[in-house]
């Protein structure tokens, strides 16, 4: 076994690549999580309020994106769907914009970033929909009756009574999906998106420090996952607060 040379990845150009890739992974994860959550809420509302039509649309969305490989979806968005967008729009995206630069010198207004965030968001939303839905279903029907009897509208019933409890019930699986999204962002290297995995492979071809580079990359994913999981569990709504907490 060759001696490990950490200097080859933790200094100079390779280090810059790793830092840049890591920050890119963090930003695209954040964008994907926000997008997935918004899409999931939108489709849950559609399912609740738009009757049979809404139901069919949501079921179609869920089965399409849950049952096809994420890599294929990313390739589709980047190589097929992107080129279907109006040329004028694509030109705007391809141009340089100062407001496109996120802290850490990550550019978000680029075809790669947008397609990656969108693809990850869409894919994850399909799982979130079903998981939050099962959380909503576990809210006792009596509380719906009580809210209707008090004159709550369907939207406010959802917003103030069902959603807080449904999210709390489903929070652990939801956190799991957010972590999956973070890890699956490595597949976006397949469309040339310069996130962590892409940069690690670049080091490998630059100075052949494959073992060291992939070790560092793996450690960063592990660290991010552990911290993200702890943070989200801590910050998230807690189911059963009512059962365990503070018996004063």
């Amino acid at each position, binding site marked *: 076994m060759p001696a490990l040379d950490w200097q080859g990845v933790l200094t100079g150009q390779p280090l810059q690549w790793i830092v840049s890739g890591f920050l890119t992974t963090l930003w695209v994860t954040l964008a994907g999580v926000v997008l997935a959550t918004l899409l999931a809420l939108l489709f849950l509302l559609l399912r609740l309020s738009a009757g049979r039509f809404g139901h069919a649309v949501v079921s179609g969305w869920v089965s399409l994106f849950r049952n096809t490989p994420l890599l294929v979806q990313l390739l589709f968005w980047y190589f097929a769907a992107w080129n279907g967008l109006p040329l004028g729009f694509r030109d705007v995206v391809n141009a340089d914009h100062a407001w496109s630069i996120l802290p850490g010198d990550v550019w978000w207004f680029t075809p790669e970033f947008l397609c990656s965030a969108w693809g990850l968001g869409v894919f994850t939303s399909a799982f979130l929909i079903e998981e939050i839905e099962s959380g909503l279903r576990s809210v006792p029907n009596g509380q719906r*009756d*009580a809210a*209707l*009897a*008090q*004159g709550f509208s369907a939207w406010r019933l959802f917003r103030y009574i069902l959603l807080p*409890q449904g999210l*709390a019930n489903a929070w652990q699986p939801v956190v799991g999906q957010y972590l999956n999204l973070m890890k699956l962002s490595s597949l976006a290297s397949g469309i040339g998106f310069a996130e962590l995995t892409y940069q690690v492979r670049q080091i490998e071809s630059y100075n052949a420090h494959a073992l060291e580079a992939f070790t560092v990359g793996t450690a960063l994913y592990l660290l991010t996952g552990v911290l993200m999981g702890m943070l989200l569990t801590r910050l998230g709504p807690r189911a059963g*607060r009512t059962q365990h*907490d503070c018996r004063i």
Partner: protein
Amino acid sequence: MLSGLFSHSAAGAADFSHLEHASVEFRDVVKRYGDHEVLKGINLSISPGEVVAILGPSGSGKSTLIRLINQLETLSDGDILIDNKPTARLATAALRQLRSRVGFVFQQFNLYAHLTASQNITLALEHVHGWKPQPAQERALALLEKVGMLEKAHHFPAQLSGGQQQRVAIARALASSPQIILFDEPTSALDPEMIGEVLYVMKALAHSGITMIVVTHEMQFAREIADRIVFIDGGHILETAPPAQFFSQPSHPRAQRFLQKVLDPLHQEPL
């Protein structure tokens, strides 16, 4: 002590549009679930401020009857007039307004499990009635004090006993100053020693001006508090009478049998 607040809540609070007459009138009301007819042509008039106890065996349609009033169940036929106005074909917004003026207390309390006792009361005040948080909070605490639950204001439902939860639920139902309040077997899910505290709150509420319709198995409550007993079985109203008359000389044979079974369960006729 209690009646002071409740009469105020029934009559006062000019910030809501009010019913002229908090009356409820059933006209040929029919409720079907598929082929099964639960209520078969109910006619019943309830005056403003009246306390009506609805008695009857399980499965007789008692709960369905009051759930029709605020349309937790939809009518199959007939109409229900509230404040002398038909309600069978209300638009969504009008239905919500009607519901917000009619209190409902459930057998299983149905408190919002993620909210404290006081938040259970403020939620509708803020998001249905548009109150600011501060007055809503004050109103919640005042109501909780009146039902003897002030010190539990910041407890979650799961930290409260059944009787305490039901008292919070009654306070919640009163928050919007309803002129009609419906009780669906409010003590049936309670341990025996907790029934008293809930009945005490209900007793204080009765004859304060608010119209009360109570589905119950508490014969003593019906006898002492109600102005009128409505006995229902098999989807029909079989007897309507003042409690004194109903409990001493029920006229319908089914009511006689029911009372005998309920009041003297060990000495009923062999089947």
